[in-house]
């Protein structure tokens, strides 16, 4: 008769089998989790962002707001047209620019510029913004997202690469816009 403390050979082998499986799972868990989270970890330290050119300064008349498009700096082979992105470029005067994301600060729908009334309007929930990107009316909590920009060798460049969303870190998409 065996007491509680003894362990049979079969029982030991089964426990070792479970332990062995546990070790294998633990070893595999690392690569699996890293693979699953790769799109997050890769984006840390703003590695998705880089400077892209929107074209020569002369393409943007002073005092006007024009639609510009650029190819997202981070692309994969199956992206097709989805990696083409649009933005609104406002040339105030000289080398003073503002570059707004196309995405409404409410839920990301594409805003349209109406030069006649000097407003950006969103087709989804009726958000409206003034020409300087600040919130005019509707559900958005803030003004339009602004890309950091620079003028170099006569070219307008912006720092882009991520879909602007209301929760994105402030460092990524510039300051909160001024109040109207």
């Amino acid at each position, binding site marked *: 008769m065996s007491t509680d403390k003894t362990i049979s050979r079969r029982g030991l082998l089964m426990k070792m089998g479970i332990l062995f499986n546990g070790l294998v799972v633990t070893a595999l868990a690392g690569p699996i989790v890293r693979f699953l*989270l790769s*799109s*997050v970890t890769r*984006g840390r330290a703003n590695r*998705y962002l880089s400077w892209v050119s929107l074209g020569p300064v002369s393409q943007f008349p002073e005092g006007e707001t024009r*639609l510009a*498009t650029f190819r*997202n700096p*981070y*692309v*994969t*082979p*199956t*992206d*097709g*047209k*989805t*990696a*083409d*992105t*649009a933005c609104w470029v406002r040339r105030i005067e000289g080398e003073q620019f503002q570059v707004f994301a*196309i*995405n409404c600060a*409410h*839920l*990301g*729908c*594409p*805003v*349209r510029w*109406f030069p*006649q*009334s*000097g*407003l950006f*309007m*969103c*087709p*989804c*929930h*009726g958000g*409206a913004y*003034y*020409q300087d990107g600040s919130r*005019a*009316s*509707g*559900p*958005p*909590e803030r003004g339009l997202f602004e890309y950091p920009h620079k003028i170099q060798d006569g070219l307008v460049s912006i720092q882009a*690469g*991520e*879909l602007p*969303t*209301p*929760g*994105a*870190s402030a460092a990524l998409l510039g300051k909160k816009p001024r109040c*109207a």
Partner: protein
Amino acid sequence: MRLIAQIGEWFDRRLQLAAPIREVAEHPVPKNTASWWYVFGSAALVVFLLQLVTGIMLAFIYVPSASEAWNSLQNLNHDVTLGWFIRALHGWGSNFMVAIVLIHMMQVFLFGAYKFPRELTWVVGVFLLLMTMGMAFTGQVLRFDQDAYWGLGIGASIASRVPVLGPAIVKLMLGGPIIAGATLSRFFALHVFVIPGMLIAFVGLHLLMVVKLGINEWPMPGRLVKRATYENEYHVLTQKDGAPFVPYAVWKDLFFAAFIVLAVAACAAYFGPFGPTGQPDPTVIQTAPRPDYFFLWLYAVLSFLPPSMETPALLIGPVIVIGALLLLPFLSGEGEKSWRRRPIAVLTILLVAVTLATFTHLAGYTPWSPHMNAWSSDPIPARFLQHRTALERQGALVFQAKQCHNCHALEGKGGQRGPALDSVAVQLTQDQLIRQVIQGGGNMPAYGKNLSPAETTALVAFLQTLHPAGQAPARDASRAVAFGGSGENSSAVRPSSRP
């Protein structure tokens, strides 16, 4: 005949399936549950099977690549024999499935079927509802067109509002920094492998519990559920007043299931497939994205929430709703089952139904959105221009050119974002009109920077003509005092008593 029986015997000796199948088919159910009210669960199952079959057929042709998906949908619609019909069956099947699952849930709620001992059946059902909604959303994404693209943007914008983790969740959801190839691939995996796999497992569990615990008896007012006695009572009921599920009750399920599949097929044949709309090209911005009908109510809610309420409502709302659904059977696991004695349950269903229907209806004509083309396509009705001064007509031009018409309707034409202006002059005095135009407010942008003084004067002159015949425009009585009776609108009917 004998040969068939022999073959059947040969197989069953090896499969051992006949006995358990017979047991399930012949399990006794209370006679009064053989009702047309009890057919929605099986109908949901049948539509789910239809979705599985048509989904697999679509996967024969569909290419889950951001650069090719749209073209492969066009190919299905126009080139592949009856590709359009299979797409239409799948699309209409999804609409029907959402509707039937909701009706099934409503019936279960009103009949008290979630009470002891069927609490877990309900909980699994709540997860099935969530998965059905998940299938609906991911399926809309696979129809990779403009609506899908911007719908993903809306999803990402909502997800990004989660405190701290928001940006990480967005990248996890999109599979990268933007909506692109990786996004479609992972939504394909979710729609085709992950969620259906879970659905099949949960449907199996749900059915197993239905068979093991028995179909909920027809609720009788006054027959209360008690944990101590219910199982015995149910057992007695099925013994005394029960009948085998097959064929006593199943024929109604069969008829209704066939009717529903026929309805799906009729809708598919008559209305055809959904989309795809324009290509998913983010540089084409002349688009007004809209979700499919089961998310329209949410689309409407999002435009009515005040900005400060939105993030809390988006993040806390679903937790409360799902939490309430999951807790329901544990909070009211005993007691009255009949809807005749549960007025709050009936009112809850009515409230939810009316709310969802109202928001869905509103989303049909989006009164909160400016009509982007009203300024150039909806002319000012002629009666507002006849017998007007040059200045007032100039104001009408400003009204069109500055796109006031996009948000303000005249004679029912134009946007509904702001109030209709047919009789604005009765409500606002000249000074109030000027103030409103220049400074905005009450959800209207300020136009001070965009209108010259001359334009403002003309616009306000036009707005002051907008009042019903025989009803004088509003006037500021203090003017008459200040200007000695020669103030603006001094010809108004009678002085107001306001200071």
